[in-house]
């Protein structure tokens, strides 16, 4: 727990309990992302799970740290993001939702 102002999203995410699924509940057709000019997923994700790797010129994402809002699934202009709920009992576990 932290009281400081301006915590980073990563620091905030440390307060969230997640049971990590071995299987990814998000898959991205990364070849589509190369054409994408908007990259809205980088903006919409409140867990900042999507990042653009300039060097490798590809989208990197981290399904383990997902808050399961599903916003990314709605906004991908290329329809490249396949998002579903994590399977049986896995994923986020809010204690104070």
């Amino acid at each position, binding site marked *: *727990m*932290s*009281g400081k*102002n*301006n*915590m980073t*999203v990563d620091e*905030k*995410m440390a*307060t*969230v309990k997640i*049971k990590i699924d071995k299987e990814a509940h998000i898959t991205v057709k990364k070849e589509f992302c190369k054409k994408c000019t*908007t990259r*809205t997923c980088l*903006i*919409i994700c*409140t*867990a*900042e799970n999507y990042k653009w790797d300039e060097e490798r010129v590809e989208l990197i994402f981290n399904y383990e740290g997902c*808050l*399961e*809002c*599903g*916003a990314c*699934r*709605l*906004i991908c202009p290329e329809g490249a993001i396949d998002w*579903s*709920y*994590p*399977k*049986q*009992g896995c*994923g*986020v*576990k*809010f*204690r*104070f*939702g």
Partner: protein
Amino acid sequence: MEKTTCIIVGAGPAGSACALSLARKGIETVLLERGRTPGEKNVSSFVLFIKELKRLVPECMDELELERNIVRSDQIILSDDDVKTITSFNYKHIRNPVTFSAFRRKFDAWFAKKASMAGAELITGMTVTDLIIDNGRVIGVKVGDEELYADVVVGADGYHSKVAERSGLNPVLDPGQCLLSVKEVLNLPAEVINDRFQLTDGLGAELGLWNYDVNNFKSGTGTLYTNTDSISIAAFASVADLKNKNMKLHAYLEKFKQHPYINALIKDGTLREYQAHILSNGGRIAPEKLYGDGVLLCGEAGAIMDTMSGMGVPTCIVSGMMAAETIEMAVKKRDFSAGTLKNYLKYLDSTSLLDMVYESSKVGEYWDGAGKDEMPDDIKAVADCYNKWWDVDYMSKDYYPLMANLFFKIGKHFMPKILRWPLGAAIKITSLYSKTCEKIKSKIRSRYYEWKKQYDG
């Protein structure tokens, strides 16, 4: 092949209300929830309106673990160097509390347990992945490789509803029809909260935050409210809007938190939990899309949501109760076709729910970001409209005028003459009285439209 009468997908307020009602009617019900405990997947800014719940579970107040009785609502227009506030303090609600802050993890678990104690079979840790459809008729659900069959499947699985999607009732979600929300729960000692918000133990306050302009992004809203020993602060904005304006919602929330006015209230609060969730911004599903062959949608899966006030829980509970009435009728008729399940609309219509949802859904348009990122300056209008929802009762609808008229017209012929006059007069008076109620209601409605016009203008 395992078969039951009714499968309910999702143990949120809608699903549990439906399961509890069905179980009490003695109808075999299975309630499936993807969380290991009901509520652990869910987020609300959670101010719980208790009226609807009380009808279903009169003893709820003794059993629920609630945080604070919300008696004050402040609606605030924020700008960098100005704060305009309208406060309303509802003393009535100290004597007769209707609104509470609460945590979903406790609330949903309690509610689902109520349903299971009444006889519904609650199975947690079950993510429904698909529906089983035969000849256009929903006959069951799939959980991975497992199959479960039922006469009727109720989709109470919230915004990203698998049931709505796979049944074809609402196959595609539109980013303009939903709000993204991000929320932080901040630890603060109860005394500090009492001090800063001028409260005593057990009483709580809620703030609605409007119109804050961050880099030309104004269409976000916020809420801040007190729990027993924590404060919840959340920001909301349309997903389409965030996309169009390239705005990070969590950055927007951070701006709220840094505003001097807000900062003074939450200062030294340590982060307990960070959360995000999505919610429907109103009734964009047409009523005829709430039912199909072997399937019904309740709660947010059917966009049964009061956007105007941001209240989903009471409306979802009422829709779950009405779905149960419909299913009881279908069980009696042994017919689960769309033709019978259509009666769901009649049941919904017997409450004020659909009217309310559809009127209130129009508000959703303002969050669509169709160039309308101005909130009305007249905060009074916002506050007025907002506060009237404290007294909304989604369950009741006046049938007096109709019944009284019928009675008067037909019944009088069968009545002894001496009785006719006094009885008739009594009925006329009640009917006049309820007509006045209707008039008041329609006045409130027109006030809302005026307010809407201001938005539009």
